[in-house]
């Protein structure tokens, strides 16, 4: 019964956004969720950024396709078979490459000449590292295009790694602020004459030096041409999270720092009137239940050491259970699903185990 609501989200939503702080196993959880969703839907897409190598191997991807990113890749029938996906269901994986998506936005919006000019500036080559929120913004650009195209029954979005889980939701505001930060208006063609009359750029030029000043200016002038398009998308994005067909779920671990992060996310989402619809507590330690009869052949010293280790594990398990209890008490209205710490060596098994713990039905 307790798993009903995650089932419900999988069955009823068009898009599930998986968020959480660093190191909680967000990508594996998103992939496991997408895998589980192939039991309900025919066409599922999971969008991720910088997927772990092991996970990529489990999906049967080459290193090259990972580096390129680009359009979603359909899982081969061989990979599907290994993962236990029904032959008539399809799972695609989209690996987000912000440069690729931005390239698309630019070629749709700017003339060839403008695009060339923009991409030639040193600042553009630094853009993906320097502009906060670009990864998140491009993830959204991509997902909305996929939803509009209607190619998939369900899209699971693994949010890009960030300092805080909530950073993803701040992106519309941040990008909007950036585009509205008048530095772009300063260089917007129609306003330039007015501004030039009021202020002088000579201070900036003196400070930055001639070359950097002109680089910056050319970059900003051209980038400003993307402004309207990006602003319009930011408005859509703000509304996207609250749409009925979109669900936001959070991944945490029993670690206190991860739970602190979860509280922060929940608080933040409430303020924004975005509803958190589920919590997955990942990497939950399991009891080891060592059978000491097996170990009778070992010497006393080694047996004692094993018992000591067993005690350590028991402590970890108790700590995790306490943390989960607290989490359930704190979010009485949310379903808190747990997924065990997986000690499997290969990606296939990890994905299948994760999918099974999130959606406990045999494949």
């Amino acid at each position, binding site marked *: 019964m307790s798993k009903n609501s995650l089932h419900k989200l999988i069955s009823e939503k068009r898009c599930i956004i998986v968020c959480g702080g*660093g190191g909680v196993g967000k990508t594996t959880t998103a992939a496991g969720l997408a895998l589980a969703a192939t039991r309900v839907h025919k066409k599922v897409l999971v969008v991720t950024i910088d997927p772990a190598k092991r996970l990529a191997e489990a999906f049967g991807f080459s290193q090259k396709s990972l580096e390129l990113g680009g359009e979603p890749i359909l899982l081969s029938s061989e990979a599907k078979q290994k993962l236990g996906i029904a032959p008539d269901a399809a799972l695609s994986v989209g690996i987000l490459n912000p440069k690729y998506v931005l390239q698309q936005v630019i070629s749709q919006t700017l003339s060839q000449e403008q695009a060339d000019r923009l991409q030639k500036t*040193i600042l553009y080559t630094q853009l993906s590292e320097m502009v906060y929120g670009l990864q998140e913004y491009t993830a959204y650009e991509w997902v909305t295009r996929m939803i509009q195209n209607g190619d998939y029954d369900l899209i699971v979005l693994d949010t890009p790694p960030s300092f805080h889980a909530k950073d993803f939701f701040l992106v519309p505001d941040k990008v909007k602020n950036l585009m509205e930060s008048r530095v772009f208006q300063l260089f917007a063609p129609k306003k330039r004459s007015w501004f030039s009359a009021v*202020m002088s750029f000579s201070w900036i030029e003196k400070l930055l030096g001639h070359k950097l000043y002109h680089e910056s200016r050319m970059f900003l002038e051209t980038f400003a041409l993307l402004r309207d398009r990006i602003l319009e998308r930011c408005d859509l994005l703000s509304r996207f999270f609250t749409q009925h067909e979109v669900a936001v779920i959070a991944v945490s671990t029993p670690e206190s720092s991860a739970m602190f992060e979860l509280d922060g996310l929940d608080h933040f989402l409430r303020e924004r009137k975005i509803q958190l619809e589920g919590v997955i507590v990942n990497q939950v330690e399991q009891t080891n239940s060592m059978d000491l009869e097996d170990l009778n052949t070992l010497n006393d010293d080694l047996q004692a050491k094993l018992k000591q*280790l067993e005690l350590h594990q028991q402590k970890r398990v108790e700590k995790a259970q306490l943390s989960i209890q607290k989490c359930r008490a704190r979010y009485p209205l949310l379903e808190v699903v747990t997924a065990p710490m997986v000690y499997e060596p290969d990606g296939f098994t990890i994905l299948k185990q994760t999918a099974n713990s999130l959606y406990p039905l045999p494949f």
Partner: protein
Amino acid sequence: MTPIDHSHADSLVGNLKRINLISGKGGVGRTTLAATLAKASAKQGKRTLLAELEDDSGWDSSLARYFGRKHFQIEPHEIDKNLHAVCLSASVGQEKFLNGFLKLSSITQMVLGNQGIKWFLDGAPAFKEMGYFYHLLQQLKNTDYECIILDLPATGHLIGLARLPNVLLKMMPIGPIAEKLKEGQSYFYDKKQTAAWVVTLPQSLPVSEAIELKDSLTKENIPVGGYVLNRAPFNPFTTEEEAILESMSSKSKTHKLMIDLERVRRLREAEKRLSDSDQVWVAPETDNPFEEESFGFRVQKFTP
């Protein structure tokens, strides 16, 4: 527990440089480590500065939380005996720089009061990092501090800060900004006084990411002090004992030993991979490292 060696020769605290850049991916316990190291350094009697980058989303600082505060302030302030803290801010750095450049703060105020210039500094890529860079430089120059510990939230920040001087110097090799960038480089590249510490966990993916991070730091000429292998599980076995258990485990159908052995195996593998690449310090797994008085000193050098 082993008694604490008073010389701390093999502890991480005993090997800290004057400038310490604590880096690593999210979830590896980097902030906790930065806080415990700062506490331990101050306890040794060193005048210590703990610094972090301003998080402009206005969220409470998880570093300041350890010291019972919501945030650190933008000027260094005392938070404990021998221990100061500061929150590095891009806009403060920009203002301080302009002050130095324009000599008179009244002119700075006028320039910053000019919306056009303010917007330019806020919005143009690289200028924000430049602000952090300058604010940090101010602290590094303060000789009162014998030990500076900087907690760098995302790996991108450290690489961004490290790369900034090179990128900008290409565009403007001379001028007031170039001077400051070169001054900053003289601190960052100096092996004698600076070290970046890459925090990671004994699991295969975090280890790979740590090695990648170390390589890119080395490429940017930032001296790396070594890896800190955090939350290392208790491992009482000798190599021979591990071999015995390993063979038992593979024979046993139930694999009941698996979790414990897998944990130990991962630790061994992480130690090996990391120590092949650089020096490794091991931080033991514990409930609440910050509350443990001696934890900072228990982070010990790994010897293969």
